[in-house]
């Protein structure tokens, strides 16, 4: 694997995470329990899609095949996506959506903090921009997880169920492969595994405030960030997200 192949892979991973999660979160638009939450979810989705344009734009540049961020978002099929499985699991109820957001935001904020020191100044610039937004996402999702976890009997039960359901998807964010090793060597990105300690400390503190129990299992579903095996849900998501470009190839707004 060449340096550029590894770099493009890394950028697809960053951009596909924000794209797929951004799309998932946008599915709430018009459906959230109260107007303020609807607006908050739509704004979070918007930030993530905005970040996607920067990551996938750079991915296209590094690939050097003349592909734009839009080409990469709309003209690839499931097996070419490199997002972690956590981002593609269905929304479930409001509690599960916010728990997924929290588990991702915590990783995202730590990752972007490291990427701000990247040896590649384009990566550092995107990370600097995105980290301001993600700090805000994390503040909100953490607050909501605590509010609902340490809330009523019903909300507590649902949040614990959400955590139990999503926990097996957490481990994939910290897995490393050949492309990651290449990124570490080039000083472009950290080894994913090196984020785990900080992540565990952060989520343990919040989940403990939320009176929730982290499942005692280290089993991790994987295959998303390598593209080896996505869940069945990604294909369904793409049929909706890519519908227009599939039905009318090359259509412009």
């Amino acid at each position, binding site marked *: 694997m060449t340096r550029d192949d590894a770099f493009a892979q890394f950028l697809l991973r960053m951009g596909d995470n924000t794209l797929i999660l951004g799309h998932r979160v946008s599915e709430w638009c018009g459906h959230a329990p109260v107007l*303020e*939450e609807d*607006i*908050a979810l739509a*704004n*979070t*989705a*918007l*930030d*993530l*899609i*905005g*970040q996607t*344009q*920067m990551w996938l734009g750079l991915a296209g540049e590094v690939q050097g095949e003349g592909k734009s961020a839009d080409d990469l978002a709309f003209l690839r099929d499931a097996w070419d996506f490199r997002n972690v499985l956590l981002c593609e699991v269905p929304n479930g109820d409001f509690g599960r959506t916010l728990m997924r957001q929290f588990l991702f935001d915590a990783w995202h904020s730590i990752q972007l903090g490291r990427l701000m020191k990247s040896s590649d*100044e384009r990566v*550092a*610039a*995107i990370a*600097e*921009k*995105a980290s*301001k*937004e993600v700090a*805000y996402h994390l*503040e*909100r999702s953490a*607050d909501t997880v605590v509010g609902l976890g340490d809330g009523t009997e019903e909300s507590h039960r649902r949040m614990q169920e959400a955590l139990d359901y999503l926990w097996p998807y957490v481990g994939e964010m910290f897995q490393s492969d050949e492309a990651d090793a290449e990124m570490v060597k080039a000083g472009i990105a950290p080894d994913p595994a090196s984020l785990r300690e900080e992540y565990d400390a952060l989520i343990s503190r919040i989940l403990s405030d939320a009176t929730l129990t982290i499942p005692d299992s280290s089993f991790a579903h994987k295959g998303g960030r390598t593209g080896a095996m996505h869940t069945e849900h990604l294909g369904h998501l793409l049929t909706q997200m890519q519908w227009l470009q599939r039905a009318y190839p090359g259509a412009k707004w």
Partner: protein
Amino acid sequence: MSQVTTQPSTDQIWEWLDAVPDPEIPVISVVDLGIVRGVEWQGETLVVSVTPTYSGCPATSIISLDIETALRSKGIEYLKIETQISPAWTTDWLSEKGRAKLEEYGIAPPQPAGGPEKCPRCGSKNLTKVSQFGSTPCKAHWRCQDCLEPFDYFKCI
């Protein structure tokens, strides 16, 4: 015959840009908002650097278009608008004039403490946060506990 071309000064350009309203908060200009980061002549071409407030802000492309339209109407022929993402935009770049206009309009200006200083309507400090997000990515939703009026707070980032 020598051709005389008069290039407007960059000060003049800044002044023109200060008349271009932000599309979502039209009481302040794009210059007040602090998103115009540079104005420079490169030969015959005027280069304007613009930084997005939020990476997903849907107003970004409209802002570039508004800037282009304004400068073209002043006779600028060769124009390049560059997007600059680093250093990342911060609310510290809002002008004093912009902050005052925001407050007058009913939007509490950003504060380093992380919340509005006072109700933009009645001046009360008895405030409560309704939601961390508001009508646009750059704002949060607050309410005054005295006059009971809901209002937007320009988030500090």
